[in-house]
């Protein structure tokens, strides 16, 4: 039996369980359906409160981080402080206020944002505080993975420079 013909033999429950099927609407009917839907969605969006907006913005940022972490392209590695800056912009938070909210010295947070904090304990502390600030919507481990990717890239780059230098030395020696 041809695969399309199989669909005709299925019960509604089976169809809805495994498929969303193409509709048979004309372009006009489809356009009317879109307009009806837009009206309903606009009404729903008007009732969204600030707490919900912040939660969705946080989720949006979390998904961006997850996709960045899972992207194997090492040419596009960005540091943890870059993403933290983006996070503040997403939530429309000032650096000073945010440092206070996560109970971190403003000077330490400023240095971190500028990429001038290299102490691992301090970074772990910041990662934990970032996770806590989002009520674990973006867990510390996600922030940690960003940092891990940054370190991994640094090691790969150092290794290739180191290897290249060794090659040069060897070439000179062989001459």
């Amino acid at each position: 039996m041809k695969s399309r013909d199989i669909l005709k033999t299925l019960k509604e429950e089976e169809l809805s369980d495994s498929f969303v099927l193409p509709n048979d609407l004309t372009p006009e009917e489809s356009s009317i359906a879109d307009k009806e839907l837009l009206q309903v969605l606009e009404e729903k969006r008007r009732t969204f409160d600030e707490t919900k907006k912040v939660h969705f913005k946080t989720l949006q940022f979390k998904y961006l981080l997850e996709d960045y972490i899972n992207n194997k392209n090492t040419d596009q590695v960005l540091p943890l402080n870059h993403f933290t800056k983006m996070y503040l912009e997403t939530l429309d938070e000032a650096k000073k206020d945010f440092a206070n909210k996560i109970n971190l010295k403003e000077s330490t947070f400023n240095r971190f944002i500028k990429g001038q904090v290299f102490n691992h304990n301090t970074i772990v502390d910041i990662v934990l505080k970032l996770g806590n600030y989002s009520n674990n919507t973006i867990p510390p481990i996600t922030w940690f993975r960003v940092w891990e990717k940054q370190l991994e890239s640094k090691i790969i780059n150092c290794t290739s420079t180191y290897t290249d230098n060794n090659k040069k030395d060897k070439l000179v020696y062989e001459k």
Partner: protein
Amino acid sequence: MHIIEVSTGELIEIEISEVVEKDFEIIDEEKYFFDWNEYKGSHKVYKLMISKEPQILGLMALREFQNEYRVEVSLIACSRENYSQSKRYDKIAGCLLAFACREAIKTYGYMAAVSLKPKTVLKEHYQRKYGMKSAGISLFLEGEGMLNLINEYSV
């Protein structure tokens, strides 16, 4: 994200990613019920696979409505081994739909919505199974509805 192996009840870890040109060579109508080439260009097509395994278990075509902050699910199909009472894995379509919610939130934040235009006879089933709301001909998910589905399918 997980699907369930029906015979054992075991949770199986899956990955969803965008279909690349090479995939279209193995996505045929016989196994995936539709001519997915028709959706190339106008839609983003996603595939669901068990982590580190080559078989595609399900496919989904999404159409973006950027001005409306909305993603429309134009088509979902499980592979031929996974569509009926005798299917090998369960929750494939649900995972794909939950993934559509994730992608919508990633793109549109709190404004995000996911919709579909169902066959009339299937409308109630989708509402019951995925908590979708009705807006005339269309069904949609937004706000809490999307979060519920994302949580249910651990996307």
